[in-house]
């Protein structure tokens, strides 16, 4: 069954020409831009999302300069910034308004344009149909439209940087009434972009769920699904059901901005010292409820696919079945349900009432249980394994403590009394970045290194990969760990001067509190670490492109000796994926099966 790559190439080009004789391959546009093939769409999602990931990172690096050296012109590209943003970056100095814009767009881009499309759009598209033995997604054309909506939403967001008045500047959460009170059309662009992105997610979610339910190959029962598929399945439901309320909220805020309604604007709202000319009667709290109704399930949209990838990589590189596969599946389902009733733990300080806070505090503590179950299962899976320390495995292994740290530091935020102190500080930033950056992004890197040979037919370079890994791991921690300390000492987020205004040195005589010089000096340290983290990504970028043409050619369709179905196709898989529909006869992780001739038995092989 182990066809060599060269063989399958020949195979593909001969037999498939006949198969596809009636199926017009079309020109470049049809093959790469308007393709309905899930693999091409997956790559489109992946590359677009990686570009946005870099862009979001660049925004933050510029902001980090302003935080470390407030009021100083940005070196090297300061002139360019002044050219593009005019008075907002006068003489290359980032103004607080521009800082706010970059902050809002950093969050928006990272969450909605980088991580979700990469984790769900790219990996889901590429891997899920292959892993379940399907020829494509259930609705290939809707899949294409989904990507196009995503791209359109991204373009709207990008264009908004250059409109008069600049882009959205009310944070990625866009709280009303702030989001309606700021001047300019940035917020309108933001909302329009969001509606497009939400539409894209919705179409994608319908497609994924339908595909997983309907197109599983014969014999692929629910408990034979690779864990990654389960993770994507639950993620699909989260996107399907959590995003529409934000769409509704977006429409209402759009009406507030454009039609002059008062959905989220209270009676007696004063803007710039003058009573606003509105009917009033609206509720700012309503926006927060609707936003976080999406916002919290969204956290699990960010993390579940990464956990799925890590599980695949860990099982493959320990050469052992996942320990507690079923518990992991049920825990994932539990997370899916509970994640819909925890949202208001983001809102303890809004004055919504202590009884409601207590309810959401309780559910928040409950949802940590299934998360811990999953993580524990993966940890125990390592026990007694003959671990192969290749690049994907290194990233997957680092994911575990990093995500663990991010998760555990979330507990004090989930208790409403300790949250009073920590709310809106750098502690919060450190917490969720530990979850998403060295957590999710490491998981995604593991996925890129792991599935790259399936797409490109060549391996990524191991040495560059290891350099990338170790430098990223070190710098990630240097960036985010000091933020815990800053946050606990009371440094607020969203301040363009990095807290200098509240330093003890500047405080008036007799005032209490203030930030010590050491806390403020940490800003420069963190900023340098962030720029170091950027340098650490250079090996990855080189590796990613260089390996397309120069990487080591794979010698078989299954270079990692894996059991799941995506490795039982030709490399790269042709349109339609499988040469014949696979018959699944066993579970997803039959590694080191006693009595088997090799240490792995693919799902579609008898032994």
């Amino acid at each position, binding site marked *: 069954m182990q066809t060599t790559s060269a063989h399958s190439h020949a195979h593909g080009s001969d037999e498939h020409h006949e198969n596809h004789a009636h199926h017009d391959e079309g020109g470049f546009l049809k093959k790469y831009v308007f393709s309905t093939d899930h693999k091409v769409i997956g790559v489109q999602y992946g590359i677009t999302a990686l570009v946005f990931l870099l862009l979001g990172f660049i925004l933050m690096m510029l902001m980090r300069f302003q935080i470390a050296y407030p009021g100083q012109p940005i070196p090297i590209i300061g002139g360019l910034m002044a050219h593009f943003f005019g008075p907002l970056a006068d003489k290359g100095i980032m103004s607080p308004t521009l800082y706010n814009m970059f902050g809002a767009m950093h969050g928006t881009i990272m969450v909605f344009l980088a991580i979700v499309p990469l984790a769900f759009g790219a990996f889901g598209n590429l891997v899920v149909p292959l892993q379940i033995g399907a*020829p494509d997604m259930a609705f290939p054309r809707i899949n294409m439209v989904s990507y196009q909506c995503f791209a359109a939403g991204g373009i709207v967001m990008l264009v908004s940087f250059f409109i008069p008045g600049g882009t959205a500047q009310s944070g990625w959460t866009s709280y009303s009434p702030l989001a309606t009170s700021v001047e300019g059309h940035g917020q309108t662009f933001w909302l329009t972009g969001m509606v497009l992105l939400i539409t894209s997610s919705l179409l994608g979610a*319908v497609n994924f769920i339908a595909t997983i339910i309907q197109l599983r190959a014969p014999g692929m029962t629910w408990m034979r699904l690779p864990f990654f598929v389960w993770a994507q399945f639950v993620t699909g439901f989260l996107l399907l059901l959590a995003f529409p*309320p934000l769409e509704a909220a977006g429409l209402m805020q759009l009406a507030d901005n454009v039609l002059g309604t008062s959905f989220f604007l209270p009676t007696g709202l004063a803007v710039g010292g003058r009573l606003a000319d509105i009917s009033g*009667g609206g509720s700012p709290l309503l926006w927060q409820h609707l936003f976080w109704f999406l916002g919290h399930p969204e956290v699990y949209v960010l993390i579940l696919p990464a956990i799925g990838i890590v599980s695949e990589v860990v099982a493959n590189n320990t050469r052992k079945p996942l320990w507690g596969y079923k518990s992991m599946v049920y825990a994932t389902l539990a997370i899916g349900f509970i994640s819909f009733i925890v949202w208001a733990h983001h809102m303890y300080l809004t004055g919504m009432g202590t009884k409601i806070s207590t309810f959401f505090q309780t559910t928040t503590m409950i949802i940590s249980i299934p998360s811990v179950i999953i993580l524990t299962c993966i940890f125990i899976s390592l026990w007694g394994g003959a671990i192969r320390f290749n690049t994907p495995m290194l990233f997957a292994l680092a994911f575990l403590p990093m995500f663990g740290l991010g998760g555990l530091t979330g507990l004090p935020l989930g208790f409403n009394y300790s949250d009073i102190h920590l709310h809106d500080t750098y502690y919060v930033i450190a917490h969720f970045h530990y979850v998403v950056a060295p957590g999710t992004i490491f998981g995604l890197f593991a996925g890129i290194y792991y599935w790259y040979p399936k797409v490109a037919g060549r391996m990524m370079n191991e040495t560059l990969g290891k350099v990338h890994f170790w430098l990223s791991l070190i710098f990630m921690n240097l960036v985010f760990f000091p933020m815990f300390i800053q946050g606990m000492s009371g440094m607020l987020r969203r301040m363009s001067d990095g807290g200098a205004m509240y330093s003890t040195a500047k405080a008036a005589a007799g005032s209490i509190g203030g930030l010590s010089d050491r806390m403020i000096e940490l800003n420069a340290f963190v900023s340098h670490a962030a720029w170091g983290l950027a340098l650490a990504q250079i090996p990855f970028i080189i590796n990613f492109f260089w390996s397309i043409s120069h990487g080591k050619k794979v010698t078989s369709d299954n270079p990692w000796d894996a059991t799941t179905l995506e490795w039982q196709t030709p490399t790269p898989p042709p349109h*339609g994926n499988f040469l014949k529909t696979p018959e699944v006869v066993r579970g997803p992780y039959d590694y080191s099966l006693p009595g088997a001739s090799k240490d792995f038995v693919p799902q579609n092989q008898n032994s």
Partner: protein
Amino acid sequence: MDIPYTVQPRRDTGLYNAKLGIWLFLASEVMLFGALFSSYIMLRVGADIGEWPQRLLNVPIGTVNTLVLITSSVTVVLGWAALKQNNFARYRLYQTITILCAFGFVGIKSYEYYDKFTHYQVITNDGKVFDGHLIKRDKELVVLSGFEIDASKGKAHGVMEASGHGPNHKPHKEIEIKTSDIKKIGNYGPAHNTYTAIYFTLTGLHGLHVIGGALVIGYILWPGAGMWKTDPERYTNRVEVSGLFWHFVDLVWIFLFPVLYLL
């Protein structure tokens, strides 16, 4: 390459792909409208006393529109059933009625919108509140056909009392107000208060669904009808799926009507 279960149902799920797809899509639609209904509740609970209008809309017109939509829901099923019996002509008849109903619904709704956009409230500099339909508006003068209301218990309450739903029914008369006396003038559009805001958002979004559904049903009925000859089973499935969407649109209205018109 053929994707399985595009026409025939999969045995263990009992569904073909598109039918599962539309059910999932409708689940997300439930969340979309659910969020708006929740917003309605939050806004209404949070409204100041006397500022949430009740019975602002014309109930008989709303009832007629409800009947129109229910009729269309019946014909959509009958049309699908006719196709199942291989009776294309009868299917076409029923679905044409469905589309006519959609037109009727949107027409009546447009009339109601027009009525609200020409309905004005004027607050004068000396604190009086006038309410009525606009007859004339130029640089010097605004003429309304309406009445002065007592806004002491809240403007919305005053309108309800004066407009005939309370005991103090007042006849409409022509009121002339000088532009220079006007402190604030505005129609009953979305910006009037939170009730009109949520009213226009909910019915507007629902109206878009009606139009979208009618376009899809119309497309299947006329330009896309060739599939009936080439692939009748798949064609019938399309009719079923579009019908499921149409029932959902109908169902949303069944909730909208009491919430916005009666309560």
